[in-house]
Protein backbone atom coordinates (compact mmCIF):
# COMPACT_ATOMS: atom_id res chain seq x y z
CA UNK A 1 0.00 0.00 0.00
CA UNK A 2 1.44 3.34 -1.04
CA UNK A 3 0.97 6.16 1.43
CA UNK A 4 0.95 9.80 0.43
CA UNK A 5 3.45 12.08 2.19
CA UNK A 6 0.39 13.96 3.48
CA UNK A 7 -1.04 10.82 5.09
CA UNK A 8 -1.25 10.83 8.87
CA UNK A 9 -0.88 7.07 9.12
CA UNK A 10 2.53 5.41 9.25
CA UNK A 11 3.87 4.37 5.86
CA UNK A 12 4.42 0.64 6.40
CA UNK A 13 6.50 0.12 3.30
CA UNK A 14 8.84 3.00 4.02
CA UNK A 15 8.91 2.00 7.67
CA UNK A 16 9.92 -1.54 6.81
CA UNK A 17 12.67 -0.31 4.49
CA UNK A 18 14.04 2.11 7.07
CA UNK A 19 13.88 -0.53 9.78
CA UNK A 20 15.98 -2.87 7.65
CA UNK A 21 18.58 -0.14 7.23
CA UNK A 22 18.70 1.14 10.80
CA UNK A 23 18.30 -1.98 12.92
CA UNK A 24 21.57 -3.03 14.52
CA UNK A 25 22.77 -6.57 14.94
CA UNK A 26 22.56 -8.69 18.10
CA UNK A 27 20.25 -6.81 20.43
CA UNK A 28 20.88 -9.10 23.37
CA UNK A 29 24.63 -8.42 23.23
CA UNK A 30 23.89 -4.71 23.27
CA UNK A 31 21.58 -5.10 26.27
CA UNK A 32 24.33 -6.99 28.11
CA UNK A 33 26.80 -4.26 27.27
CA UNK A 34 24.51 -1.57 28.69
CA UNK A 35 23.81 -3.61 31.82
CA UNK A 36 27.53 -4.14 32.37
CA UNK A 37 27.96 -0.36 32.38
CA UNK A 38 25.02 -0.05 34.75
CA UNK A 39 26.68 -2.54 37.11
CA UNK A 40 29.90 -0.52 36.93
CA UNK A 41 27.98 2.65 37.79
CA UNK A 42 26.42 0.99 40.82
CA UNK A 43 29.76 -0.45 41.91
CA UNK A 44 31.38 2.96 41.57
CA UNK A 45 29.10 4.47 44.20
CA UNK A 46 26.57 5.81 41.73
CA UNK A 47 24.36 8.25 43.62
CA UNK A 48 21.85 9.28 41.06
CA UNK A 49 23.50 12.18 39.31
CA UNK A 50 27.04 12.90 38.19
CA UNK A 51 28.68 16.03 39.63
CA UNK A 52 28.34 18.00 36.41
CA UNK A 53 24.65 17.13 36.28
CA UNK A 54 24.22 18.32 39.86
CA UNK A 55 25.93 21.59 38.93
CA UNK A 56 23.73 21.80 35.88
CA UNK A 57 20.60 21.50 38.02
CA UNK A 58 21.87 24.39 40.17
CA UNK A 59 22.81 26.63 37.28
CA UNK A 60 19.35 28.11 36.67
CA UNK A 61 18.40 28.70 40.34
CA UNK A 62 21.91 30.09 40.85
CA UNK A 63 21.47 32.63 38.09
CA UNK A 64 18.05 33.63 39.44
CA UNK A 65 19.49 34.03 42.96
CA UNK A 66 22.40 36.09 41.63
CA UNK A 67 20.03 38.34 39.68
CA UNK A 68 17.79 38.84 42.74
CA UNK A 69 20.86 39.56 44.87
CA UNK A 70 22.05 42.12 42.35
CA UNK A 71 18.65 43.83 42.27
CA UNK A 72 18.47 43.85 46.08
CA UNK A 73 22.00 45.26 46.26
CA UNK A 74 21.21 48.06 43.82
CA UNK A 75 18.00 48.91 45.72
CA UNK A 76 19.84 49.02 49.06
CA UNK A 77 22.62 51.12 47.57
CA UNK A 78 20.14 53.55 45.98
CA UNK A 79 18.12 53.69 49.20
CA UNK A 80 21.29 54.27 51.19
CA UNK A 81 22.13 57.31 49.06
CA UNK A 82 18.69 58.81 49.70
CA UNK A 83 18.69 58.11 53.43
CA UNK A 84 22.31 59.22 53.71
CA UNK A 85 21.41 62.65 52.26
CA UNK A 86 18.56 63.09 54.72
CA UNK A 87 20.74 62.06 57.65
CA UNK A 88 23.46 64.55 56.87
CA UNK A 89 20.89 67.31 56.53
CA UNK A 90 19.32 66.37 59.85
CA UNK A 91 22.67 66.47 61.61
CA UNK A 92 23.72 69.69 59.98
CA UNK A 93 20.54 71.64 60.64
CA UNK A 94 20.92 72.30 64.39
CA UNK A 95 24.39 73.65 63.85
CA UNK A 96 23.55 75.73 60.81
CA UNK A 97 20.17 77.08 61.91
CA UNK A 98 20.68 80.42 63.50
CA UNK A 99 18.10 81.84 65.83
CA UNK A 100 17.11 85.52 66.48
CA UNK A 101 20.05 85.90 68.82
CA UNK A 102 22.47 85.12 65.98
CA UNK A 103 23.76 82.10 67.90
CA UNK A 104 23.25 78.64 66.45
CA UNK A 105 20.34 76.88 68.13
CA UNK A 106 22.51 73.86 68.94
CA UNK A 107 24.49 75.97 71.35
CA UNK A 108 21.33 77.04 73.15
CA UNK A 109 19.76 73.58 73.34
CA UNK A 110 22.30 72.25 75.82
CA UNK A 111 23.76 73.30 79.09
CA UNK A 112 27.16 72.01 78.01
CA UNK A 113 29.49 74.80 76.81
CA UNK A 114 30.40 74.50 73.11
CA UNK A 115 33.77 73.11 72.25
CA UNK A 116 36.27 75.11 70.29
CA UNK A 117 35.63 73.06 67.15
CA UNK A 118 31.87 73.72 67.30
CA UNK A 119 32.41 77.44 67.74
CA UNK A 120 34.89 77.57 64.89
CA UNK A 121 32.55 75.50 62.65
CA UNK A 122 29.57 77.76 63.43
CA UNK A 123 31.68 80.83 62.88
CA UNK A 124 32.84 79.68 59.44
CA UNK A 125 29.33 78.54 58.41
CA UNK A 126 27.62 81.74 59.55
CA UNK A 127 30.42 84.01 58.42
CA UNK A 128 28.35 85.77 55.77
CA UNK A 129 25.59 86.81 58.09
Amino acid at each position, binding site marked *: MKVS*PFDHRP*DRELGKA*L*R*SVLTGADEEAFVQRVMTR*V*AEMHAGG*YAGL*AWWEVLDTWARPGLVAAALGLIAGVMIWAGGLTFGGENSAALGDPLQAVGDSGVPAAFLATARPPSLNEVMGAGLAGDGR
Partner: protein
Amino acid sequence: MEDAELAALAHAGDRDAFGELVRRYVGQARRVARSVVANEADADDAAQDGFLAALRNLGRYDPTRPFGPWLMRIVANAATDRRRRQKVRAADPLSPQTPFTGTSPDRAAFRRQFRAALEAALAALPERRRIAVVLFDVEGYSHQEIAEVLNVPVGTVRSDVFHARRALRKELAVWEDLKEEIV
Protein backbone atom coordinates in the same frame (compact mmCIF):
# COMPACT_ATOMS: atom_id res chain seq x y z
CA MET B 1 4.44 -4.54 34.24
CA GLU B 2 3.97 -0.97 33.01
CA ASP B 3 6.92 1.17 32.00
CA ALA B 4 6.21 3.66 34.80
CA GLU B 5 6.33 0.90 37.43
CA LEU B 6 9.60 -0.41 36.02
CA ALA B 7 10.98 3.12 35.97
CA ALA B 8 10.05 3.59 39.64
CA LEU B 9 11.71 0.30 40.58
CA ALA B 10 14.79 1.15 38.51
CA HIS B 11 15.00 4.54 40.20
CA ALA B 12 14.94 2.75 43.55
CA GLY B 13 17.96 0.72 42.45
CA ASP B 14 16.35 -2.38 40.91
CA ARG B 15 18.76 -3.31 38.13
CA ASP B 16 16.50 -6.01 36.70
CA ALA B 17 13.71 -3.47 36.24
CA PHE B 18 16.05 -1.21 34.35
CA GLY B 19 17.22 -4.19 32.29
CA GLU B 20 13.61 -4.84 31.30
CA LEU B 21 13.22 -1.22 30.18
CA VAL B 22 16.41 -1.51 28.14
CA ARG B 23 15.09 -4.66 26.47
CA ARG B 24 11.79 -2.98 25.63
CA TYR B 25 13.38 0.04 24.04
CA VAL B 26 16.72 -1.24 22.75
CA GLY B 27 15.54 -1.48 19.13
CA GLN B 28 13.98 1.98 19.10
CA ALA B 29 16.90 3.59 20.86
CA ARG B 30 19.49 2.10 18.49
CA ARG B 31 17.48 3.09 15.43
CA VAL B 32 16.93 6.64 16.64
CA ALA B 33 20.64 6.96 17.45
CA ARG B 34 21.48 5.46 14.07
CA SER B 35 19.30 8.03 12.34
CA VAL B 36 21.46 10.75 13.89
CA VAL B 37 24.92 9.13 13.86
CA ALA B 38 25.92 7.51 10.57
CA ASN B 39 28.39 4.99 11.93
CA GLU B 40 26.75 1.95 13.53
CA ALA B 41 29.30 1.55 16.34
CA ASP B 42 29.07 5.24 17.21
CA ALA B 43 25.28 5.02 17.13
CA ASP B 44 25.40 2.15 19.61
CA ASP B 45 27.68 4.21 21.86
CA ALA B 46 25.17 7.04 21.65
CA ALA B 47 22.26 4.73 22.46
CA GLN B 48 24.19 3.44 25.47
CA ASP B 49 24.92 7.02 26.57
CA GLY B 50 21.19 7.66 26.31
CA PHE B 51 20.23 4.68 28.46
CA LEU B 52 22.76 5.58 31.14
CA ALA B 53 21.67 9.23 31.14
CA ALA B 54 18.07 8.06 31.46
CA LEU B 55 19.01 5.90 34.45
CA ARG B 56 20.71 8.85 36.16
CA ASN B 57 17.70 11.07 35.48
CA LEU B 58 14.87 8.65 36.30
CA GLY B 59 13.95 10.91 39.20
CA ARG B 60 12.87 13.55 36.69
CA TYR B 61 10.62 11.21 34.72
CA ASP B 62 6.91 12.01 35.10
CA PRO B 63 5.19 8.60 35.48
CA THR B 64 1.88 10.00 34.25
CA ARG B 65 3.40 10.44 30.79
CA PRO B 66 4.59 7.78 28.32
CA PHE B 67 8.11 6.54 28.96
CA GLY B 68 9.07 6.04 25.30
CA PRO B 69 9.06 9.67 24.17
CA TRP B 70 10.92 10.71 27.34
CA LEU B 71 13.61 8.11 26.71
CA MET B 72 13.84 8.82 22.98
CA ARG B 73 14.39 12.50 23.70
CA ILE B 74 17.36 11.62 25.88
CA VAL B 75 18.71 9.17 23.30
CA ALA B 76 18.31 11.69 20.47
CA ASN B 77 20.13 14.35 22.52
CA ALA B 78 22.91 11.90 23.38
CA ALA B 79 23.26 11.00 19.70
CA THR B 80 23.34 14.66 18.67
CA ASP B 81 26.02 15.40 21.27
CA ARG B 82 28.11 12.50 20.07
CA ARG B 83 27.74 13.49 16.42
CA ARG B 84 28.88 17.03 17.23
CA ARG B 85 31.91 15.73 19.07
CA GLN B 86 32.81 13.46 16.19
CA LYS B 87 32.65 15.95 13.34
CA VAL B 88 36.32 15.47 12.64
CA ARG B 89 35.83 11.74 12.35
CA ALA B 90 32.86 12.01 10.00
CA ALA B 91 32.97 9.48 7.21
CA ASP B 92 32.56 10.51 3.61
CA PRO B 93 28.90 10.51 2.68
CA LEU B 94 27.78 7.68 0.48
CA SER B 95 27.21 8.65 -3.09
CA PRO B 96 23.73 8.05 -4.50
CA GLN B 97 23.35 4.51 -5.81
CA THR B 98 21.46 3.20 -8.77
CA PRO B 99 19.93 -0.27 -8.91
CA PHE B 100 22.15 -3.12 -9.98
CA THR B 101 21.29 -3.95 -13.59
CA GLY B 102 23.66 -6.83 -14.31
CA THR B 103 22.51 -10.13 -15.74
CA SER B 104 23.13 -12.20 -12.59
CA PRO B 105 20.53 -11.24 -10.01
CA ASP B 106 22.37 -11.40 -6.70
CA ARG B 107 19.83 -10.75 -4.00
CA ALA B 108 22.44 -9.98 -1.36
CA ALA B 109 24.10 -7.48 -3.66
CA PHE B 110 20.75 -5.84 -4.41
CA ARG B 111 20.06 -5.55 -0.73
CA ARG B 112 23.43 -3.99 -0.01
CA GLN B 113 22.96 -1.46 -2.77
CA PHE B 114 19.45 -0.67 -1.68
CA ARG B 115 20.49 -0.20 1.94
CA ALA B 116 23.36 2.04 0.93
CA ALA B 117 21.08 4.14 -1.27
CA LEU B 118 18.42 4.50 1.40
CA GLU B 119 21.05 5.32 4.01
CA ALA B 120 22.45 8.00 1.73
CA ALA B 121 18.97 9.42 1.13
CA LEU B 122 18.33 9.44 4.87
CA ALA B 123 21.71 11.02 5.59
CA ALA B 124 20.91 13.80 3.12
CA LEU B 125 17.94 14.88 5.22
CA PRO B 126 18.25 17.41 8.04
CA GLU B 127 18.69 15.68 11.40
CA ARG B 128 15.29 16.64 12.81
CA ARG B 129 13.50 15.25 9.74
CA ARG B 130 15.43 12.00 10.02
CA ILE B 131 14.38 11.52 13.62
CA ALA B 132 10.79 12.54 12.86
CA VAL B 133 10.31 10.12 10.00
CA VAL B 134 11.96 7.24 11.85
CA LEU B 135 9.80 7.79 14.94
CA PHE B 136 6.65 8.13 12.86
CA ASP B 137 6.98 5.49 10.14
CA VAL B 138 9.25 2.98 11.88
CA GLU B 139 8.37 3.27 15.56
CA GLY B 140 4.73 4.30 15.21
CA TYR B 141 4.90 7.41 17.40
CA SER B 142 2.19 10.03 17.04
CA HIS B 143 2.93 13.55 15.83
CA GLN B 144 2.26 14.81 19.35
CA GLU B 145 4.73 12.36 20.90
CA ILE B 146 7.38 13.25 18.33
CA ALA B 147 6.80 16.92 19.08
CA GLU B 148 7.64 16.14 22.72
CA VAL B 149 10.76 14.22 21.73
CA LEU B 150 12.02 16.99 19.45
CA ASN B 151 10.67 19.87 21.53
CA VAL B 152 9.02 21.50 18.52
CA PRO B 153 5.38 22.30 17.64
CA VAL B 154 3.21 19.51 16.22
CA GLY B 155 2.87 21.41 12.94
CA THR B 156 6.64 21.35 12.53
CA VAL B 157 6.64 17.58 13.03
CA ARG B 158 3.95 17.14 10.35
CA SER B 159 6.00 19.23 7.97
CA ASP B 160 9.20 17.32 8.80
CA VAL B 161 7.55 13.95 8.24
CA PHE B 162 6.04 15.15 4.97
CA HIS B 163 9.33 16.40 3.54
CA ALA B 164 11.29 13.38 4.74
CA ARG B 165 8.77 10.97 3.26
CA ARG B 166 8.77 12.75 -0.05
CA ALA B 167 12.58 12.56 -0.29
CA LEU B 168 12.77 8.93 0.79
CA ARG B 169 9.87 7.90 -1.42
CA LYS B 170 11.73 9.35 -4.36
CA GLU B 171 14.64 7.07 -3.54
CA LEU B 172 12.39 4.05 -3.05
CA ALA B 173 10.77 4.68 -6.42
CA VAL B 174 14.09 3.97 -8.13
CA TRP B 175 13.97 0.51 -6.62
CA GLU B 176 10.26 -0.05 -7.19
CA ASP B 177 10.64 -3.14 -9.36
CA LEU B 178 13.05 -4.85 -6.99
CA LYS B 179 11.83 -3.87 -3.58
CA GLU B 180 9.75 -7.02 -3.03
CA GLU B 181 12.94 -9.03 -3.21
CA ILE B 182 15.22 -6.81 -1.21
CA VAL B 183 13.21 -5.16 1.54
